[in-house]
């Protein structure tokens, strides 16, 4: 093993360097004196010569600075291109995957029916008689049997029957025997077939999408117009038994004393919920309970759970269905004449008993309506017997909404797209066409009203060509139509309108998703090629002042020749982007765009093609520059470790378990790296270095474990996880004892940072003021802010100060801290001198000049930048999180020390570990990859009300604090313990940043691929989709932070350092 003595001399023994420097200086002075003597006889004087040299040096410095600035702009240009590539890839995939629907705030009201001029006989505009249509039933009982597939309810030949057949015959039998009392029809769900999404559809009458872009993005409660809201607003009472999903969707809607929610997530328990419903429903059906409820919902989960646990073809399913059969028969016997009984499934189940996707078995549920008095009719005798399969005469689930609304005499919810179910309005003889036409006209008018406002709100152009909803609406409203024809015309309009919306909202656009994955994958190849280590790269940290001096003299002597020489990397980024300016590429892109625009091709395919072409151009430039595809393959242990960590993290996203336990996995990665680097540290030859490396490594691992105690568990981690982030499970405020943490941070953290700067003598110049006073001061103010916040929440000072006084004190305090850390901090960062100090001492040989902090001139000064961000993030994070972020900074400093001591600066592992740390601390600051963990209240830390763009920025800083600090710290890996004369700093930093971004790009690519592939998975909307959204947002955020903070920071830092020491390249 070669010795590492040179390293020790360079990196640590600063006094020695300074001595060498001074020695060199003294020698030069002596030499210059001699020269001056020699040339004093007639030639230019020493002063003149020095002046010429100075002028030349200035010229050289200026030239180099300009060259650096050009290089920097080209680098930034390349990164902007990268950002654009990522944005296009994510846009393509998201537009195919995350179909959004705008939630309209409008509500239907009893007094304003969508059709004008209704006769009083038709519309009483009074809830007692029925708002828009005469009321038919006083009350309704809705039994929702979760996952009741249609074929469970119809008879099957016993020879071919499975366990789920012929066990629930009551529905079919009553529909056949007493068709005027009951009917049974297939009930088609709109995917996704998960209970939560289905309940939205069944109550609002609209098609659910993953994101309903409305005012209530943060919560799960439904705030658009729905059946339950209309009932409540009409003064009716709703009782609920069973699945507690209803309670999160409709908080405050249910009668508290008679309703009973049950936990819905325990899939292994087949009976608790059902028994709860069965035991509690019959007392409510007694006539003595009249007036206590108008709508009674019973949501049974046994069938669904039996499916999840055993699959449908199992004796447990038979038993469950038999129990349901008996239960429904008993309920049907218990209701009175004016009560409507509805039994339905919210979705079906696939062959394994799971659901969530859009296969036939999953969407085909059953609907059965029952009335004690004869009420239902069939418009044709063929319809007397319930359909044999779900393909015949199906009803859409949303059709329940107008049907139930009209039967109970309440307004149809505003967003409804369903149409009335024929049997319920056709009259007992099945020929009441006037009634059918009337209700159909009402529902259609509602749909048309919604269509007008939606298209207006969205700014979508409507076509009026034949067959479009607009044209069909005109046709249906034509005068002189017979009732039956009018009914048919309205039905046609309703069907067509629904198709239009389905096209808009409810389908995955697979080609777009594939295009998105493809563009992201090709972009990733480009990024990884860019990030790969060039075969000839040597990032030798050379902190030798004497050598620098000699080189500088040489340069001055050869100034004229140097003029023609260029920096080796001067044209690197320009050439990369130059691949785009290739005439052939431009020609092909131009033709494509022209043809695409001329033929009105869809934009997505064109964008994918053009971006792929552009990326290919850059890839070929990269290959020419020596970073070939083969160069991606790691060549060292650390390269492999980086690849293994990155890939195993991302491959894990294919499994919901690994996605759910991501925080623990990241801790495992941190410890893994720690052990690997510990082993490596034992190989360091120098005993001091080895001891330091081992010490920092152990600190690194222990801090990671310590930080892991700050956690917020996601629902799926229960019961194996205990949240510590807030004071209790049901609260989002901090416990009083947690206030100790920000004060501890205020006392300890500045000293920790100081301890990292002292060994390289970099705690000089502004550092004591900046870190010891300004940074510490802002930490103290943050601690004060959270104390005031807690006092406000807990009412500790209620007698002395009013709530508004405390709130405004807090807000102004917060604004002060943010101004101090971000505005004053950034300005100071731009102007601050390097962390050096020049010490002159008299020695025997003459004057000794020592430059303290020379060996870490680049890194120590750059550290200010992450510290500024840290101060802001600590304010915006709850007390527990401030402790976590302080530990993160400590861990980052350990990491850069370890990387330096083990000479891993040009390996990928440093930035990869920063990415791991960033993700780890995302979880440690009270977040999870679920929408519900977003801390919206952080928007109100520095503000009284929502203000754009500040509120989203505050929430963004709170959410991504870990990753943002990590991104800002990436150049630190390269710059730490690097002197002012280091060459290639910009390129090395950009490459480190590329590795860091590549980690997030791999995550984004993996999550989008898995989310697209598993789009029928039960956990899509709870696990995979949120993780994809997180990864996508993070990738863009990291790109932005990388350019706007890290690259700008490197530039500012280099300019300030080279201002003092002169430009080295």
């Amino acid at each position, binding site marked *: *093993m070669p010795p590492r003595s040179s390293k020790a001399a360079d990196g640590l023994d600063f006094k020695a360097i300074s001595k060498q420097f001074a020695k060199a200086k003294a020698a030069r002075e002596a030499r210059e004196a001699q020269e001056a003597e020699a040339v004093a006889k007639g030639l230019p004087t020493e002063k003149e010569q020095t002046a010429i040299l100075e002028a030349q040096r200035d010229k050289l410095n200026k030239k180099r600075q300009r060259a650096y600035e050009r290089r920097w702009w080209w680098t930034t240009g390349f990164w902007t291109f990268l950002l654009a590539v990522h944005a296009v890839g994510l846009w393509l995939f998201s537009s195919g995957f995350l179909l959004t629907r705008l939630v309209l705030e409008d509500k239907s009201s009893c007094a304003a029916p969508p059709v004008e001029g209704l006769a009083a006989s038709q519309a009483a505009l009074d809830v007692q008689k029925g708002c828009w249509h005469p009321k038919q039933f006083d009350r309704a009982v809705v039994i929702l049997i979760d996952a009741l597939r249609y074929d469970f309810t119809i008879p099957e030949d016993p020879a071919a029957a499975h366990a789920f057949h012929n066990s629930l015959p009551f529905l079919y039998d009553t529909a056949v025997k007493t068709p005027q009392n009951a009917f049974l029809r297939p009930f088609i769900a709109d995917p996704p077939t998960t209970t939560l999404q289905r309940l939205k559809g069944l109550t609002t009458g609209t098609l659910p999408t993953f994101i309903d872009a409305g005012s209530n993005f943060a919560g799960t409660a439904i705030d658009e117009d729905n059946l339950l809201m209309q009932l409540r607003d009409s003064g009716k009472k709703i009782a609920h038994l069973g699945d507690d999903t209803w309670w999160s969707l409709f908080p405050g809607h249910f009668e508290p004393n008679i309703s009973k929610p049950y936990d819905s997530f325990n899939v292994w328990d087949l009976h608790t919920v059902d028994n709860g419903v069965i035991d509690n429903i019959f007392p409510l059906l007694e006539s003595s309970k009249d007036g206590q409820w108008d709508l009674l919902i019973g949501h049974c989960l046994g069938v669904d759970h039996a499916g999840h646990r055993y699959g449908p073809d199992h004796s447990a399913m038979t038993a469950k269905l038999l129990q349901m059969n008996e239960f429904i028969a008993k309920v049907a016997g218990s209701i009175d004449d004016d009560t409507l009984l509805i039994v339905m499934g919210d979705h079906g189940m696939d062959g394994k008993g799971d659901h969530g996707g859009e296969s036939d078995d999953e969407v085909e549920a059953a609907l059965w309506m029952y009335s004690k008095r004869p009420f239902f009719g069939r418009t044709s005798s063929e319809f007397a017997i319930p359909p044999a399969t779900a393909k015949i005469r199906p009803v859409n689930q949303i059709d329940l909404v107008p049907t139930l609304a009209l039967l109970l005499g309440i307004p149809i919810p505003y967003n409804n797209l369903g149409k009335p179910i024929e049997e319920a309005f056709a009259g007992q003889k099945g020929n009441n066409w006037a009634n059918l036409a009337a209700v159909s006209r009402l529902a259609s008018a509602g749909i048309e009203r919604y269509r007008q406002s939606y298209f207006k709100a969205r700014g979508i152009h409507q076509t009026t060509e034949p067959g479009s909803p607009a044209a069909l609406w005109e046709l249906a409203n034509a005068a002189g139509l017979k009732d039956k024809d009018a009914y048919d015309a309205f039905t046609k309009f309703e069907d067509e309108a629904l198709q239009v919306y389905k096209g808009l909202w409810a389908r995955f656009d697979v080609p777009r998703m594939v295009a998105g994955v493809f563009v992201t994958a090709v972009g990733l190849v480009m990024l990884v090629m860019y990030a790969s280590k060039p075969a000839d790269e040597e990032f030798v940290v050379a902190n030798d002042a004497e050598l620098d001096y000699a080189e500088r003299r040489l340069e001055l002597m050869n100034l004229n020749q140097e003029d023609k020489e260029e920096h080796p990397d001067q044209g690197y980024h320009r050439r990369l982007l130059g691949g785009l300016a290739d005439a052939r590429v431009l020609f092909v892109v131009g033709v494509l765009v022209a043809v695409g625009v001329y033929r009105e091709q869809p934009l997505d395919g064109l964008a994918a093609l053009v971006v792929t072409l552009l990326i290919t151009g850059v890839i070929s430039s990269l290959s020419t520059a020596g970073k070939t595809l083969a160069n991606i393959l790691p060549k060292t242990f650390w390269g492999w470790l980086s690849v293994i960590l990155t890939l195993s993290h991302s491959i894990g996203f294919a499994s919901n378990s690994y996605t759910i336990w991501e925080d623990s996995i990241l801790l*495992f990665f941190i410890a893994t790296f720690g052990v690997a680097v510990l082993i490596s540290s*034992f*190989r360091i*030859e120098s005993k001091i270095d080895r001891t330091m490396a081992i010490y920092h490594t152990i600190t690194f691992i222990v801090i990671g474990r310590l930080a892991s105690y700050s956690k917020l568990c996601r629902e799926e981690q229960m019961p194996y996880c205990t949240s510590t982030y807030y004071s209790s499970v049901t609260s989002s405020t901090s416990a009083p004892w947690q206030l100790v943490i920000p004060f501890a941070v205020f006392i300890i953290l500045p000293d920790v940072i100081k301890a990292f700067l002292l060994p390289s003598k970099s705690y000089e110049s502004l550092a004591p003021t900046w870190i010891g006073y300004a940074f510490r001061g802002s930490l103290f103010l943050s601690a004060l802010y959270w104390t005031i916040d807690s006092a406000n929440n807990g009412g500790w000072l209620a007698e002395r100060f009013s709530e508004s006084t405390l709130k405004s004190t807090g807000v102004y305090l917060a604004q002060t801290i943010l101004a101090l850390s971000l505005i004053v901090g950034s300005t100071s960062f731009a102007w601050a001198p390097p962390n050096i100090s020049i010490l002159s001492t008299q020695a025997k040989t003459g004057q000794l000049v020592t430059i303290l902090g020379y060996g870490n001139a680049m890194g120590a000064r750059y550290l200010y930048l992450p510290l500024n961000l840290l101060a802001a993030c600590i304010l915006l994070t709850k007390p527990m999180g401030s402790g976590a972020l302080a530990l993160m900074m400590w861990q980052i400093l350990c990491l850069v020390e370890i990387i330096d001591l083990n000479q891993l600066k040009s390996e990928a592992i440093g930035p990869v570990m920063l990415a791991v740390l960033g993700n780890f601390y995302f979880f440690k600051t009270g977040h999870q990859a679920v929408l519900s963990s977003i801390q919206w209240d952080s928007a109100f830390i520095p503000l009284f009300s929502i203000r754009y763009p500040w509120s989203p920025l505050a929430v963004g800083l709170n959410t991504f604090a870990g990753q943002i600090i990590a991104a800002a710290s990436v150049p630190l890996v390269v710059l730490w313990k690097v002197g002012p004369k280091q060459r290639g700093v910009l390129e090395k930093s950009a490459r480190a940043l590329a590795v860091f971004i590549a980690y997030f790009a791999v995550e984004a690519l993996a999550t989008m691929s898995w989310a697209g592939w598993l789009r029928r998975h039960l956990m899509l909307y709870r696990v995979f989709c949120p993780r994809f959204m997180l990864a996508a947002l993070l990738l863009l955020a990291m790109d932005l932070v990388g350019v706007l903070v890290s690259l700008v920071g490197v530039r500012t830092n280099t300019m300030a350092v080279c201002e003092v020491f002169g430009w080295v390249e």
Partner: protein
Amino acid sequence: MSSALVKGSSAQATDTKPKAAIAAVPTFNNALSKGVSFGRVAVLLGLLAAQFNELVAQPALTLQTAVPVVAVVQVAYVVLCLPAAGSQQAKAAKKPRPGEKKKPEAAGTSSLVTALLALVLTTISTPVIHALFILFGAPLLDHVLETFLCAAHFALLGVFPIIYARGVDNQSLVAVAGVSAPLDETLGGLLGAVLGAWLGAVPIPLDWDRDWQTWPVTIVCGLYAGSCVGSWLSGTVFYGKRIGGTAPPAKEE
């Protein structure tokens, strides 16, 4: 491994000079030793297989009962197969290297005494390994007994043979900790145990609801399999080879 790490970090010996190469630990070249070496792997894996159901049902009790059995197996193995630290055989292996400093021979050090001493040191190393498990994310306050017993098994399989063969010689232990010593049965057993236990953690988060996912069954299985395979491979195929790529020396100037 961890015990070795800690000893190395707190060691006082001066070793700033380039290290003398550390030799691999050979096994005795006789039929008995070969048989025992092979038999040990069979016995350990057989024990694990036989007790697997017990282990899943009652991890703590099973691991506790197994500790003395495994200790006896390991003591028998080291005494019969490996040269004790400071013994003639160990020296013989080192002899050909020039510049090696001769140590005064410890009089009357029989292998068995060395083994018992090593066993004591191994016991001391167990809490360190326990701490390492916790650093990787094992529960701190729950399942303490299980974690500790798992660490004890780790120490017996991975650490004990090394202490027996290397003694408390700082230079060798630093070489072992840095994996810069050549591969042999002892180091291979340790590396295998580390890798096996690491991989053993992989199936824990899965929601398969299997009994064997209980802590620390997968870790124990991983470390037994890893240690046996590692020790066997390093004793035969990779004997004497050095892992150069795992650390910076390969790319130092």
